[in-house]
């Protein structure tokens, strides 16, 4: 890739905006990856606060325990990728209007936790933001079996999933797989933002 191509790629990402629903294991890791990749604007929605039990897989640190996750994440991104605009919205997504905070972003990332909430969110984005690219994830519990992780393409939905993983209610959440799937979500976002024909 020559300098002009690199500059054009950087400019495309800097102009882009990505919405992230949830700032737990998936959302916090995807947000940092996207910020480091140079995405210019992130809109992150999460009502939760950082707990010590989150540190094993979520992108938070001991000195952030007790902070709102969106605030902690904003601080971290300022340190890791200064210049990225982060709009952190510290509230719960309201059923019936879950898609509303994301109406102006280029791509939406589903990074929620509970199965029914995840599916509800996917359905509401498909209904209320027709055609908006949506990247979702399913099956983050467990470890190993890396080849089971696949991308299911059902435009405009791109689902990163391990269809055979256990629910986190019966399985265990461990950083390598949670972070791998979060980073795969971020990688799919780049593919959408830069155009699948430019995959490199």
């Amino acid at each position, binding site marked *: 890739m020559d300098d002009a191509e690199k500059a054009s790629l950087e400019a495309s990402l800097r102009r882009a905006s990505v919405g992230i629903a949830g700032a737990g*294991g998936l*959302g916090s890791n995807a947000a940092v990856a996207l910020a480091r990749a140079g995405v210019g604007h992130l809109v992150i929605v999460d009502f939760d606060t950082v707990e010590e039990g989150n540190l094993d897989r979520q992108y938070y640190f001991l000195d952030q325990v007790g902070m709102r996750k969106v605030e902690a994440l904003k601080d971290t991104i300022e340190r890791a990728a200064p210049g990225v605009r982060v709009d952190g919205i510290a509230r719960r997504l309201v059923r019936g209007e879950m898609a509303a905070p994301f109406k102006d972003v280029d791509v939406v990332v589903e990074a929620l936790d509970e199965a029914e909430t995840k*599916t509800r969110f996917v359905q509401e984005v498909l209904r209320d933001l027709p055609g908006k690219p949506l990247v979702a994830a399913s099956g*983050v519990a467990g470890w190993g079996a890396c080849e089971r992780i696949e991308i299911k393409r059902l435009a405009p939905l791109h689902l990163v999933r391990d269809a055979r993983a256990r629910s*986190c209610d019966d399985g265990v959440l461990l950083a390598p797989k949670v972070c791998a799937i979060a980073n795969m979500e971020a990688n799919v976002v780049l593919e959408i933002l830069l155009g699948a024909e430019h995959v490199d």
Partner: protein
Amino acid sequence: MSIDVNGDTVPYVKGETVADLLARMNYVFPMLVVAVDGKLVQEQDFSSTEFSDGAKIEVIHLTSGG
């Protein structure tokens, strides 16, 4: 006369909707993502969307964890 549901061959029932099929297949989880021949069907259209003989239907259950 059959359809493919998540890789399984299932008898085709003329006039059946996505909602009917989910009930027949005993999908009890309240929220599902469904695609017919690679096209997503929105939840509000489950009870009005029919499919043809030979259709490939995917019923996706998102798993908790994030």
